[in-house]
C-alpha cells in the first residue's frame, strides 16, 4: 500500500533565499501530522508546495503513489483551510460550502443534501443562510473546514487553522478538529507554530527550523527525546547548563559534578546539558539520590496549577528553573528567599556538544 504522501528531496529557493532544503517525509494514510517551527522556517511554503500553489525548485511530491510534482493544484486531491479562512464574503455559508460542488453536473438536491450533511458535521446546520461576516471566528473556521471537506479530499491541509481565534475557542476547536479528522479518517497536515496545539493534536510532529527538518516523531518522541538542541529548546521550557564532559557519563557544571546516563563525549569537551524544569525529585528521600543540589529561591513565576522557581545553586554558576505543583509549593515551603533541596531526575536529560547548540 502506497503512502498517502511522499516528499522526496524538496528544495525551494526564492531568488537567492533558500526557504526549504532537501525535505524528505512520508505520511501514512489517516495520520494527522503537524509541521511545527518558528516563524519563517518554511512551514507554509512546504504546505503550498504539497498543494501545488507553489512550485518546488527540486524534488518530488507523490500522492497515493502518483507523482504530482508538476500537476497544477486542480489536478491534485486535497482540501485546504487557510489562516484567514478565505471564505467568500458575498456568498452565504451554504454557497461557500457548496462552492466546489456546483458545475459538477450534479442534481441540485444532491448538492443540497451534501451541503447539509457537511454543515451538520461541523455543527452549523442552522447557519446556512448567513454570510461569513455574521458568524464568529470559530464558526467561520468550521465553515472553511466544511468547504474543504465537501469535495471528499484524500488529504486535508490546514495552515494555522486556529491561530486567528482567542485562546478559549482555540482550545475547544483543537479537540473538535481532531475528533472530526479521526472520524473521517482523512490524512491531515496541519501547520502551526503553537507547540501545545501540535503536541495535543498530532499523531506525529515534524519540527522544522530554517528550511530543514530537525526531527520527526510522535509528540512524546519530540518532547521527551529531542534529537537536536533546537528541538529541546523549542518545545517546552528547558534549562541549558554549560558543562564540561569528564568522561564515562560524568560532567562538571561550574564546580558541581553530575552523573548522567548519557555518554559519548571525550573528556574535556564543552557540552550543554538540557534539563526540563519538571525533571527533578523534590519529595521523599532526596538525601539518598545522586545529583543532589541545594538552591536558594530567587524568584517565583506563579502559573496557577504550578509554578516555576528560579534557584541559585552555589557552585553551579547559573540559575536553574525548577517546577513545583501547587501542592508541593505549600508542602515544601517554596517561597522567595528559602533554601530548598532537590535532586535532578536524569532519565530524560539530553546532552549536546557545544558546537551543535544554538
Amino acid at each position, binding site marked *: 500500500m502506497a503512502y498517502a504522501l511522499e516528499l522526496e528531496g524538496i528544495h525551494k529557493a526564492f531568488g537567492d533565499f533558500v526557504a526549504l532544503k532537501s525535505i524528505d517525509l512520508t505520511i501514512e494514510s489517516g495520520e494527522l501530522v503537524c509541521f511545527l517551527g518558528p516563524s519563517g522556517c518554511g512551514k507554509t511554503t512546504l504546505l*503550498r508546495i504539497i*498543494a*501545488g*500553489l507553489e*512550485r518546488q525548485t527540486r524534488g518530488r511530491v507523490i500522492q497515493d503513489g502518483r507523482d504530482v510534482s508538476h500537476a*497544477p*493544484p*486542480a*489536478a491534485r*486531491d*486535497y*482540501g*485546504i483551510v*487557510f489562516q*484567514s*479562512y*478565505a*471564505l*467568500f*464574503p*458575498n*456568498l452565504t455559508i451554504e454557497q461557500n460550502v457548496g*462552492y*466546489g*460542488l456546483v*458545475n*459538477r453536473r450534479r442534481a441540485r438536491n444532491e448538492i443540497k*443534501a*451534501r451541503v447539509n*450533511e457537511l454543515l*451538520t*458535521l*461541523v*455543527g452549523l446546520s442552522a447557519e446556512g443562510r448567513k*454570510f*461569513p*461576516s*455574521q458568524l464568529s*471566528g470559530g464558526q*467561520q473556521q*468550521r465553515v472553511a473546514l466544511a*468547504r*474543504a471537506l*465537501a*469535495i*471528499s*479530499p484524500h488529504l486535508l491541509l490546514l495552515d494555522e487553522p486556529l491561530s*486567528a481565534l482567542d485562546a478559549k475557542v482555540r482550545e475547544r476547536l483543537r479537540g*473538535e478538529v481532531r*475528533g*472530526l479528522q479521526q*472520524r*473521517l479518517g482523512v490524512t491531515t497536515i496541519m501547520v502551526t507554530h503553537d507547540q501545545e496545539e501540535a503536541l495535543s493534536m498530532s499523531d506525529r510532529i515534524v519540527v522544522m527550523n530554517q528550511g530543514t527538518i530537525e526531527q520527526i516523531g510522535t509528540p512524546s518522541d519530540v518532547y521527551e527525546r529531542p534529537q537536536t538542541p533546537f528541538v529541546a529548546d523549542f518545545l517546552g521550557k528547558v534549562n541549558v547548563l554549560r558543562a564540561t564532559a569528564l568522561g564515562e557519563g560524568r560532567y562538571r557544571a561550574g564546580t558541581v559534578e553530575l552523573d548522567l546516563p548519557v555518554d559519548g563525549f571525550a573528556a574535556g569537551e564543552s557540552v550543554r546539558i538540557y534539563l526540563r524544569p519538571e525533571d527533578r525529585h523534590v519529595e521523599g528521600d532526596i538525601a539518598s539520590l545522586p545529583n543532589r543540589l541545594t538552591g536558594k529561591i530567587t524568584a517565583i513565576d506563579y502559573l496557577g496549577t504550578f509554578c516555576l522557581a528560579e534557584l541559585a545553586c552555589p557552585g553551579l554558576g547559573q540559575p536553574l528553573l525548577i517546577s513545583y505543583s501547587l501542592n508541593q509549593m505549600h508542602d515544601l515551603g517554596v517561597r522567595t528567599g528559602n533554601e530548598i533541596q532537590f535532586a535532578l531526575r536524569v532519565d530524560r536529560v539530553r546532552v549536546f556538544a557545544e558546537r551543535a547548540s544554538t
Partner: protein
Amino acid sequence: MMSAAARANPASFKVIPSRLALAAEVLVARGGLILLATGLLVFLAVPLVMILIRSTENRDGVFIGLANFAQYLRSPSFGNSLTNTLQFSVTTTLVTVPLAFGFAYAIQRSRIPYKGLWRNIAMIPILAPSLLAAISFIYLFGNQGWLKFVIGWFGIKTIYGMPGMVLAMTFSSFPHALMILLAALALSDARLYEVAEALGTSEWRKFMTITLPGAKYGLVSACMVIFTMAVSEFGVPKVIGGNTAVLAVDIYKQVIGQQNFQIGAVVGLLLLLPAVVAYGIDHLVQRRAQALLTARSVPYQPRRARLRDSLLLAFVILISAALLLVVGMAAFGSLVKVWPYNLSLTLNHYTYGFEEAGLEHAYRNSLNMAVWCALLGSAVTFTGAYWLEKTRRDQTEGLNFLRPVIRFQAMLPMAVPGMVLGIGYILFFNHPSNPLNFLYGTMTVLVLSTVIHFYSSSHLTAVTALKQIDSEFESVSASLKVPFYKTFWRVTVPVCLPSVLDIFRYYFVNAMTTISCVVFLYSPKTTPASVSILQLDEAGAIGSAAAMATLIVVTSGMVTGVIFTLEWWLVRRTQAWRNTAQS
C-alpha cells in the same frame, strides 16, 4: 457540537477535472495576459515610439538624425515658448499647492464645520473642462469684464496672457493637488503631537517640525502633478493665453496648422521630458514614503482652537466661493444676452449652438464617447489588473516576463501628456501602411486613446481594491477545482463593485472634459463637446462656448451623482456581508 453525522458515500463527490478543463483554464490565464500586453503595446508603446522615429526623419521619411531638433531649438520661437511654459507651470504650482495645502489642512487638522460640503465644492473643477475656467476669467476680468478693475489693483493690464493662464490653471488643477494633500494630511501620528505637547511645544513649532515634514511626500507629489498638468495644458493657453506662446500650443500649430509632423514630434518629445522627470522624482519619493505608512500610528484628532478654526473657515469659504464664482460665471454668461451690456436671461446661446454650430452633434459625440470609455475602460482596467496580479505564475509559465512589462506600461500614461499621446496616435494610425489605419478619425480611436490616457489612475484604483481582498481566494478556488475565472466573476467582481464603479465614473468624467489628446484625433463627424468649445471660442461665440462648458459640467455632475447614489445603494444592499470585514 460536531455531530457524528453519517459520511454518505464520500468518494462520490470526488472531482477530477478533465485535461481539457485544465487546459482551458491555462489558456484563459495566458490569453488574458497576452491580450493585455498586446493592447498596451499597440495603443501605447508603439505610438510613443513612432514619435521618436518621426522626430529623426525628414518629410520624406528619410533618417536625418537630430536635424529636426537642431532646427527647432534654434528657431526664435522655441526659447520664448520654453520660458513661457516654465513660467506658467512654476507659477501655477506655486499658487495652487499652497492654496490646496491650506484647504486640506483645514479639512484634516481643524474643527471647522461642514467639512463634507467644502470638500465637495472643491471637487467641482474636476467636472469641468479646463476651458471653462478660461472662459469664466474672460467674463470676469476680460476686456468687457465685470471685475476688470480688480486686476488693475495688482498692476495687471490685461487678463489675456500669463495672469489669466495661471488663474484658470489654478482652478482646473486645484482638486488634483487637494486630493493628494488630503491623503497626505490624513496620515499622521497623534502620538507625535502628544509628545510635542508634553514638551510644551508651540503650535507654530509643531506645524513646522511635525506637520510639514509629515506631509513632505504629499507636497512633492502635488507639486509634480500640478507642474506636469500645466506643462502639458493646451486649452487654457489657447483660449486665454493671448500672444503668450507655450510648447503645448506650438505642437498644435505645427501638427494641425502646418501638418509638420516632424517638428510636432520634436516638441512632443521635449514636452515629455519635464513630465517624465517630474514623474520620476515623484516615483522615487513615493517609494520612500511607503516605509512611513507601514508604521502603526494613532490617528490624530484635532482639538478645538477658536482663532485657528475661524481663520481656516474664512479661508475655506473664500476659496469655495471663488471656485463657485468661476463655475457660476460660466453658467451665468451662457444665459445672458450680451455680456455685460444686456443681462436679460435667454437660452439663445444654447439654441444657437444647438441649431447652427453643431453643438448637439458634439454633445452627443461626447456622451457617446464618455459612455464607451467608461464601459470599456472600467472593464479592461479591472480585468487587466486582476489578470496581472492574481493569475498563478505557473499557469503563465514562459509569459511571466510580461508582468513587469505590463505593470510599467500601465503606469506610463501618467507621465505622458495627452498631447504627446495624441501626436503618437496621429503618426501611428494615420500611417498609410498601418493595417489599423481604418481606425483613424473614428470614434473608436477617440475612445481607445482616452482609455489609455487615463489608464494609470484607474489601474491603481483597481490594484488597490484587489490587494484589499483576501489573497487566497484563487488558491481556495484551485483546491476546489473551480477555474479562477469563475471565482473572478462570482466573488472578486461583486466584492470590488464599488471600486469598479469608481473607475467607471473617473473615465466618464474625464472623457467628457478631456481635450489635449482628442484634439489631434477627432474628425468633423466625431468632434467632441470639449473641442467644440475651442472652436466656438475661436469663432468668437463665447456665449455658446460657455453654454457647452456648462452643459459638460452639468452632465458630469449628474452622472457623478447617479453613480454615487448607486454605490451608496449597493453598499447598503450588500452590507449584510460587507459590513463587518472578516479577518
